[in-house]
């Protein structure tokens, strides 16, 4: 072999190689980079590859299984919860009817702590809420001493009532979300407003304690009673022509915000005070019916209707719905 060789790449005469030089060079060229340098470079190369954002399809592929599992779990839990709630709701309703019947028989004088029926539509509820001024602690403190004392008495009575209901095994009356701090000084207009506003917010009677504060869904909300609409009209009229009259316009200090939790309001017919004279016949009827079973109430309401006393019958029906929200109504009264 000659010392000069072509490299065979067709590079021309300039690409010649000297085999003797090649051999000598190979013999003396044994240096390698240090191992730590190798490790550093290879690690950096791997880091660079790992830090590189992967393609979207690769990322989706990686998440496909976990997302599928999560979706299945969520769906299963949702369906199971829905099924259980629907079944429980039916049972609960029938239980509540039985319970009312028993209560009416055994403890006729027990105060009806039925919640506000969910009668008010959303629009009426919104109007009622908008009319309720927010009461700050300062406003509450500024109440008259008599008001404060009566509020305290009302709270104490409410607590006693709750305690006795708990002892007797009856369902606990639920806290009234929109209850005023001093309900004794409310005007009927205010009471109607609050009944309309708060009735849709609470659903307590006949429900388990854990479900008492569940929000009322629109499906559960019944059509608005005429009483609520009338109350709104009265309120508007009173506001317009009262011109500062404290008795006509509700005192801000006496009204708690609708969102403020407080003791449950008593029935508007159980309250006394100025402006309640027009409800006197109904109040008398209520006193008469209070210890009676729901069936008696319905009979009385129907009788009033037959006699043409529609306003009283409506008031009584509204009160009935408030007290016995789960009691089935005859078709004529629906």
């Amino acid at each position: 072999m000659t010392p000069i060789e072509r490299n065979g790449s067709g590079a021309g005469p300039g690409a010649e190689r000297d085999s003797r030089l090649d051999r000598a060079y190979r013999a003396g060229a044994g240096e390698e980079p240090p191992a730590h340098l190798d490790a550093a470079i290879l690690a950096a190369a791997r880091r660079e590859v790992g830090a590189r954002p992967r393609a979207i399809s690769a990322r989706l592929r990686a998440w496909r299984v976990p997302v599928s599992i999560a979706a299945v779990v969520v769906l299963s839990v949702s369906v199971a919860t829905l099924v259980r709630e629907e079944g429980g709701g039916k049972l609960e309703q029938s239980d509540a009817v039985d319970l009312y019947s028993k209560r009416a028989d055994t403890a006729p004088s027990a105060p009806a702590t039925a919640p506000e029926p969910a009668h008010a539509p959303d629009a009426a509820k919104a109007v009622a809420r908008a009319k309720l001024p927010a009461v700050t602690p300062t406003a509450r403190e500024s109440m008259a001493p008599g008001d404060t004392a009566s509020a305290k008495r009302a709270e104490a009575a409410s607590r006693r009532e709750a305690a006795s209901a708990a002892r007797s095994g009856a369902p606990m009356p639920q806290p009234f979300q929109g209850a005023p701090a001093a309900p004794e000084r409310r005007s009927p207009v205010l009471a109607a407003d609050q009944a309309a506003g708060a009735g849709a917010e609470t659903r307590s009677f006949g429900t388990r304690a854990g479900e008492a504060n569940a929000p009322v869904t629109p499906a559960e909300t019944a059509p608005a009673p005429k009483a609520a609409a009338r109350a709104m009209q009265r309120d508007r009229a009173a506001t317009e022509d009262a011109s500062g009259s404290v008795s006509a316009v509700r005192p801000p200090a006496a009204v708690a915000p609708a969102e403020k939790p407080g003791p449950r309001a008593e029935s508007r017919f159980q309250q006394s005070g100025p402006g309640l004279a027009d409800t006197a016949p109904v109040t008398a009827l209520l006193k008469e019916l209070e210890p009676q079973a729901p069936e008696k109430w319905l009979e009385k309401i129907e009788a009033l209707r037959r006699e043409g006393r529609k306003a009283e019958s409506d008031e009584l029906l509204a009160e009935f719905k408030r007290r016995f929200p789960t009691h089935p109504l005859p078709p004529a009264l629906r």
Partner: protein
Amino acid sequence: MSWSAETSDEELMLSYRDGDAGAFDALYGRHKGGVYRYLLRQCREAAVAEELFQDVWMNLVRSRAGYTVQAKFTTYLYRLAHNRLIDHYRKHSHAAVVSFEEVGEEAMAEVPDDRERPADDALDAKRQAARLMELIALLPEAQREAFLLQQEGGMSVEEIAQATGVTRETAKSRLRYAMVKLRQGMQE
């Protein structure tokens, strides 16, 4: 994934570009010695050579996303090494940069072509290697680079020209001149 010896450098680099770190390992294993020796012979200091060596590979790693096969991988790799070396020369001394200037073809005429001279078999391989290394160190940078690229990178004249950014004729003359000098030195 394991890579066979038949897998080309370009395929390995493309695989690394697409996220296969194992391809880089194979590529590094093939070329680390050549690049290191190329830098070591050029700058003559191990510490500097190591720094430059690391920079070259890190540049390769960083530029992998834009890698496309436009030439042999070795050409691409040694081009990175050459550029890093020039930067180093510029930073530390102008002398080397000056020596990279063109060598006139007339210089070639002064060097006798002794390629037909028989090899001196009296020197053993080790002594020949040591002597050759001394001669290589005495070469001007441009000529030395051409010779090292041929030896370490296995490059042809065209590839040397591409890697160093000169014309084919320039690369050819540098290489020939280097070899003539080395042969002369080995004969002495």
